[in-house]
């Protein structure tokens, strides 16, 4: 659309974040830190269920679990009649709450790429993830909403990005959140880019070299410390020093092993250098079951799964059943089944494992767990992999993993049993802090109650300069919609693109041209009957609250 009015341009430019009074949404502290979940179903540990029980939490600790327990006077009471209480979930390897550095898309030819220095080469094992935590990061909230209360988090990056910490997902200040610092030395067997080491073979060589150098300098520092007289001063190298706890077998190395062959590279390093190892984010671990078992490596399987195939290919090939295509689809399905059946295969092979959310999208996690269960994992095993097993693998069994007196008050409370398709998280406690979740706010996808948006809508976009009014028309076209927008400053109707209605979530885009510059406008929000609530994004001009109502005349 061509804007003929220069004022809108001004308006859009002025719509930058307004300086001045920012509304600090600080919540008031809870009245009490004592909670009683009464008459509820408690799954204390996989396979150990008490019905009609009460759970008492006090000052961040589970104090009592059982039947006929009196409710303390200072307790906030949660009626748990239709609820299920589980231990909070533990994620063995993730980036939850970790600040992601801005990606430098540097294709520039490096000078002397053989000697890049530690940092450019991705060698920062001395980096402490505690310095990179952002309690306000929305990933913390997203994972917590699923029931995850604790995660072993690592810095972003490849090769040797730094030290991991085990944190609580309560959103508190970094030091408050950290349960175990320097829980592991994190490594990905992936090169940085155009500098040494730029290949897997370079990475593996450099790994061994650093380790050997660290071993030698560690030894010498000890010799020096015992009697400094007459000895050359050892040079402090923080990179090498970061390996010392590993060399002393006080700290494991945590490897990402999401590619099928990664685990084999880990086997080699482990057997050569003899340090404790955790491997996380495995996706094709079933290809190496026996060797994983023999290695004794601690394992966290990926919560990510490839999308389930949609049944669409059948229509186009109805004339002749193509044997080759069928065979290929069959093999592809087998590969998918292998991925989905990974967890079950590990159980069958007698290898215990936790889960890693590193490459999974929170919105898929519960569905993925249900797919793993359908592929042979029992619900108890699934629960164990979320609670007791990771607690044990990370050395936290004394503190968490079960709903027992003395454990930390890390709980997830659901309506319906946890892996039930209709199960919903209603409460999560992290370290005694309660997070409450409302019953269904977003209507389920494709449950037949897809909103009907056909018709004319009056949109009102709230900019700092006042509201702008537009008319938006949607027309149904088969399964999808077409439409246009007009009004306000838009004199000629402009076609909408990418109209996406998913359940009641509506999203669409259009373009406006201001003095020859094209601005992409995107409106995103939820439809509720004849009203709409959402936001409008206009590229670098910012985002604005938006409401709309459907015109009953049409």
């Amino acid at each position, binding site marked *: 659309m061509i804007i003929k009015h220069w004022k809108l341009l001004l308006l859009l430019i002025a719509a930058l974040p307004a300086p001045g009074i920012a509304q600090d949404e600080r919540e008031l502290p809870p009245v009490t830190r004592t909670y009683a979940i009464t008459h509820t179903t408690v799954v204390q540990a996989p396979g150990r269920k008490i019905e009609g029980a009460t759970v008492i939490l006090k000052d961040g600790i589970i104090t009592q679990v059982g039947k006929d327990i009196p409710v303390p006077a200072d307790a906030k009471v949660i009626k748990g009649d239709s609820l299920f209480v589980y231990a909070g979930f533990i994620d063995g390897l993730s980036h939850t709450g970790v600040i992601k550095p801005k990606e430098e898309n540097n294709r520039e030819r490096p000078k*002397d790429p053989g000697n890049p220095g530690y940092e450019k080469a991705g060698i920062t094992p001395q980096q402490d993830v505690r310095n990179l935590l952002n309690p306000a990061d929305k990933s913390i909230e997203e994972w917590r909403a699923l029931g995850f209360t604790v995660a072993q988090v690592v810095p972003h990056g490849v090769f040797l990005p730094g030290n991991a910490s085990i944190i609580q997902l309560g959103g508190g200040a970094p030091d408050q959140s950290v349960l175990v610092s320097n829980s592991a030395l994190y490594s990905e067997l992936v090169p940085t880019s155009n500098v040494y*080491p730029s290949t897997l073979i370079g990475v593996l060589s450099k790994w061994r070299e650093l380790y050997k150098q660290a071993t030698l300098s560690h030894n010498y520092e000890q010799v020096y410390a015992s009697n400094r007289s007459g000895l050359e001063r050892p040079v402090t190298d923080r990179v090498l020093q970061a390996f010392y706890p590993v060399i002393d077998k006080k700290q494991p190395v945590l490897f990402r092993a999401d590619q*099928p062959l990664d685990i084999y590279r880990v086997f080699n390093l482990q057997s050569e250098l003899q340090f404790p190892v955790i491997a996380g984010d495995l996706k094709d671990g079933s290809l190496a079951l026996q060797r994983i078992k023999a290695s004794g490596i601690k394992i966290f399987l990926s919560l990510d799964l490839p999308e389930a195939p949609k049944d669409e290919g059948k229509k186009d090939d109805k004339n002749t059943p193509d044997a080759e295509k069928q065979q290929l689809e069959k093999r592809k399905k087998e590969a998918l089944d292998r991925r989905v059946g990974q967890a079950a295969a590990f159980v069958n092979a007698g290898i215990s494992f936790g889960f890693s959310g590193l490459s999974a999208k929170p919105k898929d996690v519960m569905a993925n767990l249900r797919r793993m269960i359908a592929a042979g994992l029992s619900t108890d095993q699934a629960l164990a992999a979320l609670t007791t097993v990771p607690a044990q693998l990370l050395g936290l069994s004394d503190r968490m993993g079960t709903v027992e007196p003395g454990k930390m008050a890390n709980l997830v409370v659901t309506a319906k049993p946890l892996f039930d398709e209709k199960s919903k998280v209603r409460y999560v406690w992290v370290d005694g802090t309660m997070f409450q979740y409302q019953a269904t706010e977003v209507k389920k996808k494709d449950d037949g109650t897809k909103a009907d948006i056909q018709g004319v809508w009056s949109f009102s976009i709230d900019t700092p300069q006042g509201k702008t009014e537009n008319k938006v028309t949607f027309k149904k076209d088969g399964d999808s919609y077409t439409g246009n927008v007009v009004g306000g400053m838009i004199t000629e109707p402009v076609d909408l693109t990418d109209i996406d209605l998913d359940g009641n979530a509506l999203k669409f885009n259009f373009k406006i041209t201001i003095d020859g510059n094209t601005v992409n406008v995107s409106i995103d929000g939820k439809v509720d009957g004849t009203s709409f609530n959402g936001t409008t994004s206009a590229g670098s001009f910012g985002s604005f609250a938006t409401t709309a109502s459907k015109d009953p005349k049409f």
Partner: protein
Amino acid sequence: MRNRLYILLTLAFGIAAVQTTAQSNRGSVVIRNGTVLTVTKGTQDKTDVLIVDGKITQIGKGLSAPAGARVIDASGLFVMPGIIDPHSHIALEDINEATAPVTAEVFTGDAIDPMQVMIYRALAGGVTTIHAMHGSANAIGGQCETLKLRYGTTDPEALRMEGAPRTIKFALGENPTRVHGGGYGIVPRTRMGVEFVIRKAFSDARDYMAKWDKYNQDKLAKGFRGAPPLYNRRLETLADILRGQIIIHCHSYRADEINMMLKVCKDFGIKRIVFQHANEAFKIAPELAAQGAMASVFSDWWAYKFEVYYASAYNAAILVRNGVVTSVNSDDAELMRHLYHEAGKTQKYGGLTDDEAMALMTINPARQLGIDSRVGSIEVGKEGDVVIFKSHPLSIYALPLYTIVDGVVRFDKDKDPDDMRLFVDPTQSTETTVDHRYDAGVDRCMEGTDFLFGDLSTEEN
């Protein structure tokens, strides 16, 4: 429920299948009544070859086979030792650490990819052993791994030819000068620079060795508390070359650079060197023969770059006639599928005899890799790597029917299914066509350096 049971069953069987393949890396086969081209002991008509638990145990007539051994009737067929490709880049996840002129410390054996379908395709061309090499971007590249093509497992370890001598890639001429001089503006930009880089590396290694030898000597003294020298894997590896523990395989083309490298070897006391490609080795054949240096060559490639413009398809024949241990190699996933044909071309270009031509792809590459006591000919005691052909392998009508590695049939022309992939990516589209016409002439040796020279798709060679 039934469905779930079914899935559990498939999983169990799937696992079982993988394990069996991983464990059955040695097998027993009796090949009956074939024309056996032993390579080292002449041709024996209507002869049986018996392989038990991966080793050739008997060659003769009417041999009795142990129970459970697979029997292959080779009447009218030709039986030859498994083909050895002394220059390959398949079965590797990474090839070229092209960031420094010397990267002796890296090792292709760290990046074995046992799932590439090219491994099976090579088996279908009779190849049983490959030298999986580092690329040629650096004057001193990485160490290489010798692999047996035991296709059928996802475990990289299963492919390693245990006990094969260590080897390392060197590279002279245009590739290192183009990458480092041309690409990064550092030495070497010329063949003079390449020589300097190699000589300096060996000199540094000599100093390094001396320092460590001294430290290790001092350490023996009671109460020694000194600081160790800085550990350096690059210099460690170079020192191992000087100690004679690693065979150099040197990518090279021009006679002058080969001669330069011969002199470097002489000066540093290095005995074992094989020149790879060595398109102009024929011009310096007497010198190679005198120093016991070997050559592994293309049958007929030329003119894809300037340094191979003055090459000749008669290279192999001239080298053989001058007493140089010579092999043919592929450096190419397609070419390696018909090394028997490439060896055959030396009969057109220079009239080599059948035995001479057969040696180029069997015992000679085995010598170059230091594995000739184990493979490279059909002899009792050697490993059971055998190919069975319809028609003589040097004939254009030769057709590999079976390829056997350590007594296990890894290629069976009539029984294998079309789709031999070991790993299927469930997220990949089923119909991905790759037009390999555009690959032809792309130097795999130089893989990973393309960003230095712009988009390869605009430049074919």
